[in-house]
């Protein structure tokens, strides 16, 4: 009871700052400019919306897969490496974490543009004669997003890996299992919750990316967030923007519920 009482201000804050505006968006999606589902039918009937959603899913799923795999390796190094390696990995995770997404994105720009460090270096040692197009395409977008999102995947993975009972791994070793078998058949399955958590976090987070695709995508990789921005500010159609936001929110919600149900199912 007292716990509920101390939580009350937080709940109130969440309600005011989050739920009410959210309800406002939902309401606007069916009332602007007039009552009805026309915004939804317009949004779902628009080939641009579908192509943007397809691209967003393609990019976000790739980013999620790559970020989680890399974060997994990084977390292993972080938790099991030598002292020096741990410090190094920690810095590698934390320092970019403190930089804004904007500065990181510009870091990539200066590194990967045609006259950027990488191309200049590759050309100077004679590996390539013409600069490689490393950014201003989907590759650049995925790279920038993966880089930004890896730390978010590391934390759930680290907590799952710390929860793995080392004796279970020792038990498997004692039975003569190879390291590879232990990794794939014991360790990875035992960190499944961390993998799912990390993937969810990265995926949901990636759906809202705006700056990275805008700057590293060369203007071509329009994702959902930018489309909503367009509908709010560029060609104002708030009803449509609200409907788009609501659609994304609902699909993420449905996706999460389905996923939770499924994981619960497999746990039984």
């Amino acid at each position, binding site marked *: 009871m007292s716990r509920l009482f101390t939580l009350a201000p937080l709940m109130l804050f969440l309600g005011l700052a989050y739920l009410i505006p959210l309800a406002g968006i939902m309401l606007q999606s069916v009332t602007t400019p007039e009552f009805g589902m026309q915004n939804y039918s317009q949004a779902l009937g628009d080939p641009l919306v579908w192509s943007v959603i397809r691209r967003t899913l393609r990019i976000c799923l790739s980013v999620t897969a790559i970020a989680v795999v890399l974060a997994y390796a990084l977390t292993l190094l972080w938790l099991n490496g030598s002292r020096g390696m741990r410090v190094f990995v920690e810095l590698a995770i934390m320092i970019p974490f403190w930089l804004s997404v904007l500065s990181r994105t510009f870091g990539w720009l200066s590194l990967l543009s045609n006259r950027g460090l990488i191309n200049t270096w590759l050309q100077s040692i004679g590996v390539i004669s013409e600069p490689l197009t490393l950014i201003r395409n989907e590759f650049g977008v995925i790279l920038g997003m993966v880089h930004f999102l890896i730390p978010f995947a590391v934390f759930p993975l680290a907590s799952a890996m710390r929860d793995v*009972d080392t004796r*279970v791994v*020792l*038990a*498997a*070793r*004692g039975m003569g*299992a190879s390291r590879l078998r232990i990794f794939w058949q*014991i360790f990875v399955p*035992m960190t499944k919750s961390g993998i799912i958590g990390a993937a969810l976090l990265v995926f949901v987070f990636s759906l809202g990316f705006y700056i990275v695709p805008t700057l590293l995508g060369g203007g071509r990789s329009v994702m959902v967030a930018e489309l909503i921005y367009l509908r709010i500010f560029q060609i104002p159609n708030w009803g449509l923007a609200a409907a788009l936001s609501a659609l994304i929110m609902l699909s993420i919600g449905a996706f999460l519920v389905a996923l939770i149900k499924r994981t619960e199912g497999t746990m039984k």
Partner: protein
Amino acid sequence: MASSTAAIEALQIGKDYGTFTALSDVSMKIMPGEFVTLLGPSGSGKTTFLMMLAGFEDITRGKLLIEGADCTKTDAEDRGFGMMFQGYALFPHMTVAENIAFPLKVQKRPKSEIKTRVADMIDLVGLTGHAHKRPTGLSGGQQQRVALARALAYEPPVLLLDEPFSALDKNLRGQMQDELRRIHAKMGTTFVFVTHDQDEALALSSRVAIFAKGRLQQMASPTDVYERPSNRFVAEFLGDINILPASFDGVNSRVGDFAITLPQAPSSQATHIGVRPENLVLYPAAETDGLECTISDRVYMGAQSRLQLTSALDDTPLMIDVKTSELTSHAEPGQKIRVGWAGKDSLIF
């Protein structure tokens, strides 16, 4: 394999962590089919020694022979030992059957063999009908049985057990001990069992190895370690004991006025005599021999009662266990009595 070859032979094994010596000069032979318990208080080095046998800890000094072959540097995965951990260490994402099948799959046994073997093991540990459950759906005792079945499924020559029953409640622990003894007898596997519970050690093993302060203190049969402890630590660690200062002259020794004739002359360093409470004898009231004591407390323990005494000699507290039926109503706190013991029951330190 000739039965004269030890399953495991440790030759002056030691372990250092930096400058800290966790274990020194442990030598022992464990014969095939033995049930050896490593017993000692926490920090005594028993678990370190087990982990070195398993291959999970490097051996700093000394040599380890397995069936006569030097395995000091062999990896855990190549020693072929079974291991049971404190907390079961089951694979949480696998069913009971999958857990038991895992080591068999590692050994690439044929599918049909795995199937029958798994079923046999499940029957052996009494888990018939639970094959498709996950560990989280089982009780502690059942999980323990799965761990045992898994560890024995691939018929390892040696099974190492690291305090496997420490998380179980007392009743369940007794049941599991019986089960373990039964399975040991049936399978003939060499068991090396770590525990800090002396009752468990005495009840289960063919031999007990007692560790303290990083050293092996004594290794002998349960009877021997209890009745003939090699030093005062072992004597005090196993059960209760009264220890009294004594003087020695050949086979004759004295505690105060009480003279005891020992079966054989002790070493010249001997200073004390130890007697188990059950070996003290209450003398009749008229007797003048023995040690004069005052009863300070009387504890009823069913068939037995324990009297807490204070020696008139130097106020040393003593314990004596007597049959409750033999106690007179006079054996009350404050009353003076005399106690004594036989020379054969004297432990010399």
